[in-house]
């Protein structure tokens, strides 16, 4: 039994009203990948923030290589070689990659006060090579895609020659190929003796990568397990506290009805062309492919959020005209990929957010009646089991899963006929995922049609009735229910 590289003992952290961490002990050994799992609000991110010095623990002790240390701030954390890759990128858009990698650790130049940019770029080059990311380090970050930014984040962490790397759902935004790159890299790091604390909601990853799994729930440490000795279902049960079917399957599937959405030869400036697809009432149709293959772009074009340059879109066989406003009026709904940026008015109440879409339907006269709005909102809150005392509460106070429910709930008052779900389960925990799926299922049973984008093929496989796979802006192929397997999706999705 080697002494752990770093250890936390009986750490507690309390926020007004919430005990975020309650006597949690946690250790990480050199060269191991320690999976940290738990529902949102279980305390994962608090633990992480304490590790990196963003929060101060109320109680608890820290040990580095067996001797007691204290973390007063980010500086200490860095000194102990702890580096964190947050989910919300900590990159500065109008600085270049190199400057971002060394933000706060700029090398001093010969002239006192100035920074040595040559050295910064040289070093950045080195780090980028280390993770096999070939890009000019002097590219401004605002020019990078989300996956590339993720790479920069990792490079940033490694550049601090971290001995302990904390990753918060690093694959959430990555395509499969990029994910493989990441995993390969993680292996390399392990061999170098780097310890990795890996937070994930994707059970496949947990078992594929993990040397050890620690489960948190409601701020308490529930269990610490070894993958070989556990099954996914056990794990999920531990996380949620009640048995949940991790790989959600739909009890019954309605027989597809009329064609709700028909897209013919859709092409757009945002890099997709000749996209043809149909969705029938009662169907959940998947739209998959690598990140950057044009899934989201197609979805936005169908919804009218972006202009299409050519092609035809028919909703219930009526051609629709390219503005999101028009699409909404005709009963189309979009659940965008980014809750915070595109889905919610964070500084407004849950109720305000829920009634927004349905305003015209709820108040045809144009007169807004708060009481009626409240009732409508509460109805949705109850229907979707959104965990909140009152719809008057600010939506920002909800957990990720519940926020996602609000984004979906917005459309229930608008009785939409066709829904586009773009990454509906990104960054939400297993329990919430199951509920979202149940919701999709409910919608199609009520005769709606759904187009669902997801990077997690397992979800597509389990949820969808059919799926289209995109590759670099084209539909690479369509998979009927019986041919819908992860292997097929990957085969179609990546270049031969």
């Amino acid at each position: 039994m080697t002494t752990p590289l770093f250890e936390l003992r009986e750490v507690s952290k309390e926020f007004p009203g919430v005990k975020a961490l309650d006597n949690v002990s946690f250790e990480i050994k050199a060269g191991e990948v320690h999976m940290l799992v738990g529902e949102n609000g279980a305390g994962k991110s608090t633990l992480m923030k304490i590790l990196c010095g963003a929060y101060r623990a109320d109680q608890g002790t820290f040990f580095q290589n067996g001797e007691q240390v204290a973390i007063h701030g980010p500086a200490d954390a860095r000194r102990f070689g702890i580096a964190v890759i947050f989910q919300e990128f900590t990159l500065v858009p109008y600085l270049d990659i190199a400057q971002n990698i060394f933000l706060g650790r700029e090398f001093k130049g010969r002239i006192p006060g100035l920074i040595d940019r040559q050295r910064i770029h040289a070093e950045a080059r080195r780090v980028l090579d280390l993770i096999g990311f070939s890009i000019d380090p002097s590219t401004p970050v605002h020019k990078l895609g989300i996956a590339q930014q993720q790479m920069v984040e990792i490079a940033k962490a490694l550049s601090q020659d971290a001995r302990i790397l904390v990753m918060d759902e690093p694959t959430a935004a990555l395509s499969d190929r990029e994910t493989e790159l990441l995993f390969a890299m993680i292996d390399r790091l392990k061999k170098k003796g780097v310890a990795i604390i890996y937070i994930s909601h994707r059970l496949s990853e947990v078992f594929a990568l993990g040397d050890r799994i620690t489960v948190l729930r409601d701020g308490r440490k529930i269990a610490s397990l070894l993958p070989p000795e556990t099954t996914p279902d056990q794990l999920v049960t531990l996380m949620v506290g009640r048995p949940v079917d991790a790989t959600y399957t739909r009890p019954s599937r309605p027989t597809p009805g009329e064609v709700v959405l028909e897209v013919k030869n859709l092409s757009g400036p945002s890099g997709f062309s000749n996209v043809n697809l149909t969705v029938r009432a009662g169907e959940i149709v998947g739209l998959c492919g690598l990140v950057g293959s044009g899934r989201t772009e197609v979805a936005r074009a169908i919804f009218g959020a972006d202009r299409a340059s050519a092609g035809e879109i028919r909703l219930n066989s009526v051609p629709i005209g390219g503005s999101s406003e028009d699409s909404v009026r005709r009963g189309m709904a979009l659940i965008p990929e980014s809750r915070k940026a595109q889905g919610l008015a964070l500084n407004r109440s849950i109720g305000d957010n829920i009634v927004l879409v349905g305003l015209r339907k709820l108040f045809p006269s144009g007169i807004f009646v708060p009481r009626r709005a409240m009732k409508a909102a509460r109805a949705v809150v109850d229907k979707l089991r959104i965990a909140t005392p009152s719809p008057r509460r600010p939506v920002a106070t909800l957990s990720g899963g519940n926020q996602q429910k609000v984004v979906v709930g917005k459309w229930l008052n608008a009785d939409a006929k066709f829904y586009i779900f773009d990454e509906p389960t990104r960054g939400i925990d297993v329990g919430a995922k199951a509920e979202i799926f149940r919701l999709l299922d409910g919608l199609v049973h009520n005769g709606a049609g759904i187009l669902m984008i997801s990077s997690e093929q397992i979800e597509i496989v389990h949820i969808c009735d059919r799926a289209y796979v995109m590759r670099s802006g084209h539909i690479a192929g369509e998979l009927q229910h019986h041919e819908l397997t992860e292997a097929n999706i990957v085969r179609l999705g990546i270049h031969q």
Partner: protein
Amino acid sequence: MSTRTLVFSQLARVPGVAIALVGLCGIFAATSPGFATPANIANVLTQSTILLLLALPMTLIIMTEGLDLSMGAVLTFASIVLAMIAVGTGSITLAVAGGLAVGLCFGFLNGALIALLDIPPFITTLGTLGIAQGLSLVVTDGQSVVGIPRTIEAFYSGTVAGIPLPIIIAALAYTLTHVLLYRTRFGTYIFALGGNREALKVAGISVRGMLIRVYMFGGLMAGFAALLMTARLNSAHPTAGIGMEFDAIAALAVGGTSFERGNGWLLGTLLGVVTVGVLRNGLNLLAVPSSAQVACIGALVIAALFIDGLRGEQ
């Protein structure tokens, strides 16, 4: 940014303001004989210096997604204090120090209110604008402060090797700000303040400390602007700087600095200031009536922003 991308990104952005500047110069040179003379060019540049001293720090402040509406008033008050000390003690050094101190104090006050009490910059500086303006009136009771030693005048009217001193001061100020923004940690963190404050926190850098320093830099530059203003008027007047902050903001907006995500461009600010200066000077030389001049300035601001908007879409 590395020199290469820096140069590139700047070239890519030149048109909006540069077209305006080149175009205006062309027109005025063609239509007004007096315009393209060394004397007049020196004249325009000299006139632009005070505004530039405000527009440079304002660019950095706006890059932090902040704003400083108090600059004009602070300039005024600093200039009054400077003049009063000069009159009282006859010591230039003391006077200049006093003026800069006023600038720094207000800069700190702004920064502290914004960073520590997190009052939004717009309101904070709207408030301190009132305070500085009020103090200027109270201490002078509306009178100009005159009788300051002639030597102060030299700061504005003096020349070194035939180049007007204010132009040299402005050039220094620009170089300093440029180095500060593109070559130092301070500058790097300004990009971060506007672009992603979380990144700073994670890197263990005090956002509040940075903010305070940015506004103090603004105050300091306002202090120097006050020195030039006092030298220029050879007196201080409680209304001298009113509204200059808006001119500065307009100039940097014309220069292509956007109000979001720390997307600023210092060279553009310089061009913007000169463009506005050239416009006013040219219209005066052409004896265009003031009412038309007023309209032209408005048109310039909107036109330049419109161009950048178009280019942004491409």
